[in-house]
């Protein structure tokens, strides 16, 4: 018996060794990248994008940050992601209805602010992008934006020793491919979480609205909240808010993606967080002030077949209402977010 058992244990031990050896390759001999646990702010829903196949790590984030600020991703080197997405403007383009792109061209829509992106089901004004990971390809390849080609960008990155090191640190080896580049960019932009405005502090009981802000909040909850739903201040839906069509651009919005006439002139409901950092407003940046945008709802809604039932009769707002609303909307500015050094250019 004793001998039999010895044999069994030896066999098990040997096989155990084989098993460990087999696993070794996947574990790697180094400790690997440092995981980051994504913190969901109190009261926020479950994110749409959850880093399941793209594990969030310190090294992946840093690589994404470098890529985001690097002109190499554009054809002539002048247009990194950050050229249209500026941190001090909550990653929108400050004071521009349209943004500058390759060869003196302009975009045809207002650059959206980048924050809380992992809670968006689709990105872009028309919702054309169904997964955050592939969003960077759109500006990268658009001839009036970064005007580049994926393989050309990968070629440039491959010639850079720093990138080789950073890809290795983030993903285990020096291979640079589109998936890894997109994963890293997604780790950076997905980490841009803005949830530290006065509004958030009031919700946590750490601050209090002034009576005027509170009046604005009450108005907001009765007149705006059904589309700009808290806590993200958007319900991520697509709606026609009755903006007259600009005949030079003739942008039909969501219909371009769905080919469905019922989606004509519908655009994504933008978040109102950081509103006062992201002017001008509207999908084509036609409103230069919050007051103008509010007045549109009060008196400017143009009727059409797809205009949203919630705004088709306008939203009556007195001058006082608009003033109170603006005082409330100012509490949505997150100055911690725009000053966060982690989101600033690498080395700054």
């Amino acid at each position, binding site marked *: 018996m004793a001998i039999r058992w010895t044999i069994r244990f030896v066999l098990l031990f040997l096989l155990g060794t084989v098993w460990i050896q087999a696993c070794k390759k996947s574990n790697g001999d180094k400790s690997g990248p440092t995981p980051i646990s994504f913190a969901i702010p109190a009261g926020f829903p479950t994110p749409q994008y959850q880093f399941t196949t793209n594990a969030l790590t310190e090294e992946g984030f840093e690589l994404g940050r470098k890529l985001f600020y690097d002109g190499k991703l554009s054809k002539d080197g002048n247009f990194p992601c950050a050229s249209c997405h500026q941190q001090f403007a909550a990653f929108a383009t400050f004071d521009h209805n349209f943004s500058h792109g390759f060869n003196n061209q302009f975009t045809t829509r207002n650059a959206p602010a980048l924050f809380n992106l992992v809670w968006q089901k689709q990105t872009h004004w028309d919702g054309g992008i169904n997964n955050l990971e592939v969003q960077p390809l759109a500006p990268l390849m658009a001839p009036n934006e970064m005007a580049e080609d994926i393989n050309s960008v990968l070629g440039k990155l491959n010639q850079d020793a720093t990138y080789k090191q950073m890809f290795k640190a983030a993903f285990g080896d020096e291979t640079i491919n589109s*998936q890894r580049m997109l994963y890293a960019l997604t780790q950076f932009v997905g980490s841009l979480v803005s949830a530290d405005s006065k509004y958030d502090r009031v919700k946590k009981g750490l601050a209090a609205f002034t009576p005027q802000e509170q009046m604005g909040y009450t108005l907001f909850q009765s007149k705006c909240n059904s589309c700009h739903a808290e806590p993200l201040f958007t319900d991520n839906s697509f709606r026609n808010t009755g903006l007259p069509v600009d005949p030079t651009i003739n942008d039909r919005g969501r219909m371009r993606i769905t080919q469905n006439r019922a989606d004509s002139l519908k655009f994504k409901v933008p978040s109102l967080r950081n509103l006062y950092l992201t002017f001008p407003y509207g999908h084509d940046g036609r409103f230069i002030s919050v007051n103008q945008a509010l007045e549109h709802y009060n008196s400017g809604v143009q009727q059409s077949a797809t205009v949203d039932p919630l705004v088709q009769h306008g939203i009556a707002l007195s001058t006082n209402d608009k003033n109170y609303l603006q005082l409330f909307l100012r509490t949505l500015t997150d100055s911690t977010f725009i000053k966060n050094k982690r989101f600033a250019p690498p080395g700054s």
Partner: protein
Amino acid sequence: MQPRQPNTSMLNRIASCLLLISVLASCQKELKMDATAIHNIELRFKPVVLFDTVEMKFDTVTYKNAFNESFKVSAFKFYVHAFELFNTDSNRISRAGDQDYYLVDFADSNSTVIKLNVVPYKYNVLAFTMGVDSVLNVSGAQTGVLDPAKGMFWEWNTGYIMSKLEGTSPVSTAPANSFKYHIGGFRQAESVIKKITLLFPYPEVIDMKPGKKTVIDITADVYDWFNNPHDIRIGTNAGVMSPGTLAQQIAENYSKMFAVVKVKND
């Protein structure tokens, strides 16, 4: 000793199970690689024109579609996956290869040969799927043949271009007389994903002996893109660049472009 017997055999069993599990777990990767290393089926795709008789050449030769429109071809490629072989007598169906995707690009001869493995048997039908399953159109950044860097991806309206035919034609009204058919669409209402079933021409059949290989020659006729059942004139439609009715019509046309022309058993 007697009373301990069952207990020992139980332990034995547990030990064997543990051994088996360890072996399986440690070898899983290797086993999979070994299995795909035995390629006993080779599919060779060839572009043709005119009822599968003439080999299609890129750029240099002018062809004429059913509407007498002259054209030259500069790109012809498509995604395929999920291969199966049938025997229509015994109704036996065998999956050939794994679920890998292949991009058949007639400008790259390496991509036109697909090597698969299948259980040796007699088969007379080949089936596969053209296109990229919907889930992969919404799952973010892919790699390998599904890498968006392959140029078969819409970056502004996420989704794969499942088939591509490009060229020039004097009747095209597009810049440089080009025509570009980028066919995609994965949502149910606009899907261009097609299941292709090809019966081998009688008396061709796969008669596979263990350890032997079968080569199947498959033609893809570019003329079929333009008609039957839908008339697609280059003069009217020089560009299809998004999902929708036109893309679905072209996909229905080209889903009939394949034919098994020869089966060669080792």
